């Protein structure tokens, strides 16, 4: 059953119950009170009529019927002690005879229904001037039945109007209630069709509004995950393509030179040059395999970081790497603030070596390694005056096998794995590599390592 129908049914049920009950209680209570009041009035009329009859008997008036007519209470009858009627002015259709009384002091009453009228009949015994009689007085109480019928008619109108208004209002409210749920259903279906950008308007602070907000958050998370998975899949494809290419290129050279040496008679000099090429490509393949191995190894998170003095660490590393730089025509400078940082010595050295190697490959002549303590972080940066990175490439430089200048990289035996490796090592240290580069002027790579200010050495 639709929610609309459920709400409609429930509201109608509750409204009907409330209206019926309140209407019944109102009319029943009003009728009961009116009947009680009329019965009391009938008893008063009986007493008044009794006084009139008694007065007449005391003063010896014979025409009792005339006396009662004067009192304007003519719907009465008087019977002698043996049941013979003295006079009767009861309405036509009244049952003949005298109802039985339990005792002379008892006055009884009941309701008599004659034709379309109702009478409260009161009767009792009367003793006066040595006579014993029975007096019956009938009071017309049809008015209260007519009032009751009028009340029921009025209530019927109220009942119908209220229920109609209730149903109309319920329809509108149910439609308003169901509308956002329908929107949610449509958005879900749209999302199931692959439209992950589907969102709901977050209106109101009620449960449905909260559901919309929650749905939007879920849709956002799904969309992000899908984007992430797409990027990951694309990167994997690129990785495989790059790896294939990186393997194929040196292998082609190796196979080509080897085939040439096998099939042709070559001079000693040519053989040496071919062998040299084979060795170079072999070394490149070896370097490639080592770095790939490192990347695989770095996917494990079971590294133990040790607290070390940053300035000593950076100076020590710079000293170790300085000959390599000098050999490749670059000057390496290092300056560092004193602080304790938590690092894995070998990994951190690999990180710096890769960054410096990258700077050298970018044609830098001056490389500056810095360590600065700012707030709760220790900023380690490697700045160079190389060719720089085009803005469009900055986002992808940490992807495996991604190279900015392919020809230069090839000459330098690069495979595009250095920065990927460095990025992974930075992540192991709880940091990320941030690149700031200007084409033709140089690049600065910075990372922020956690550092306690209290631990800073004076």
């Amino acid at each position: 059953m639709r929610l609309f129908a459920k709400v409609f049914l429930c509201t109608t049920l509750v409204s009907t119950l409330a209206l019926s009950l309140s209407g019944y209680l109102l009319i029943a209570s009003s009728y009961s009170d009116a009947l009680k009041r009329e019965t009391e009035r009938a008893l008063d009329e009986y007493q008044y009529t009794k006084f009139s009859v008694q007065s007449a008997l005391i003063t010896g008036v014979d025409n009792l019927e005339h006396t009662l007519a004067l009192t304007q209470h003519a719907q009465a009858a008087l019977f002698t002690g043996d049941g013979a009627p003295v006079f009767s002015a009861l309405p036509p259709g009244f049952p003949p005879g005298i109802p039985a009384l339990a005792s002379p002091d008892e006055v009884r009453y009941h309701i008599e229904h004659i034709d379309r009228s109702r009478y409260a009949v009161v009767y009792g015994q009367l003793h006066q001037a040595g006579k014993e009689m029975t007096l019956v007085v009938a009071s017309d109480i049809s008015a209260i039945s007519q009032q009751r019928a009028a009340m029921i008619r009025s209530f019927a109108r109220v009942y119908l109007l209220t229920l109609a208004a209730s149903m109309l209002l319920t329809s509108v409210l149910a439609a308003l209630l169901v509308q956002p749920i329908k929107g949610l259903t449509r958005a879900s279906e749209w999302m199931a069709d692959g439209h992950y950008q589907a969102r709901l308007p977050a209106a109101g602070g009620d449960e449905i509004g909260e559901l919309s907000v929650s749905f939007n958050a879920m849709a956002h998370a799904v969309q992000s995950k899908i984007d992430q998975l797409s990027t990951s899949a694309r990167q994997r494809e690129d990785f495989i393509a790059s790896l294939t290419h990186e393997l194929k290129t040196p292998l082609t050279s190796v196979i080509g030179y080897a085939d040439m040496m096998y099939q042709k008679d070559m001079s000693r000099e040519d053989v040496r040059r071919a062998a040299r090429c084979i060795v170079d490509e072999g070394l490149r393949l070896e370097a490639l395999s080592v770095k790939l191995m490192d990347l695989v190894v770095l996917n494990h998170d079971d590294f133990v970081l040790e607290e070390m003095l940053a300035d000593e660490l950076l100076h020590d590393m710079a000293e170790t790497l300085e000959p390599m730089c000098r050999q490749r025509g670059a000057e390496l400078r290092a300056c560092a603030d004193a602080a304790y940082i938590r690092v894995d010595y070998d990994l951190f050295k690999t990180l710096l070596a890769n960054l410096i190697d990258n700077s050298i490959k970018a044609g830098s002549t001056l490389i500056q390694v810095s360590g600065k303590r700012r707030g709760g972080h220790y900023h380690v940066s490697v700045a160079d005056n190389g060719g720089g990175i085009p803005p469009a490439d900055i986002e992808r430089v940490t992807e495996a096998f991604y190279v900015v200048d392919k020809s230069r990289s090839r000459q330098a035996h690069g495979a595009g794995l250095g920065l990927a490796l460095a990025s992974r090592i930075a992540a192991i240290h709880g940091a990320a590599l941030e690149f700031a580069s200007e084409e033709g002027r140089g690049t600065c790579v910075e990372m922020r390592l956690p550092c306690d200010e209290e631990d800073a050495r004076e």
Partner: protein
Amino acid sequence: MSRVRVQSAAGVALSFLVALGGWALTNAMLDWQEAFLLSSAGSVRVESAPQAETGLAGGADGAGLAADVMARVVAAWNAPGAAARPHEPTEGQLNMEQAIAAAKDGLSRFAVDGIIPQWLMGDEPARTGAYLWEKEPTDRVIRQDSQSKIAAKLPPEYSYWTVTFDNNRVNVQLMLNAVTGEIWRADLFAYEAGTALTELEASDAVKAFAAYLGLGREGPVWVADTWASQQFEAGAVDIVVTKGDRQLTLRVSEPGLHENAGWILVKPGR
């Protein structure tokens, strides 16, 4: 049409059935209640005082009430909004024969004192009516009377007999205290114009009526053309007499209520 749509349509149809069913049920319950109420019968036991053949009933020795009690009773009779109901005489109250006898006795005293003409006593009334009334206790009366606070019913002296004598010349309506049998109000109306209902001046009639009631310690008197009023018992009650063409009224009143504070003889009406 899908199953859900069929169920929804059935739900809406059921709603209308529920509405109609609610109406039918309400009507059935109302009819049942009416049948139950109309078929019920009841009885009331009337506790009346023993009938006395002559003289006043037990406790009603003719002695007047104290002035302060008289003032309270009159205030209760005059209380606005308090309905009067006829009832059987109870212990300490006059029965009908005694009330009529007391009324006739009182009128004889009035005739002797000159309040009403002697010829009036010679006419035998064609019609006589006597009715005993009790007033519903109002909050004001209950506050004033400690006994009625407990009983939730006014004491017997708060009831009154209205006795009417009527012939072709004069209609006399008397209001008697149900315990003492004293006439506390008398309204006389002559059917013929020019009929003198008293030979006394209003101020003299006041004194004569006060003497009948045994009131003393006279206070200030107000006299106008058609009425006179005087305080008695150190201002506890007023006696007011109004004389008019074909009309004479003598009454006990609350202090300070003069001409305009009229009493109304109440009969049960529809």
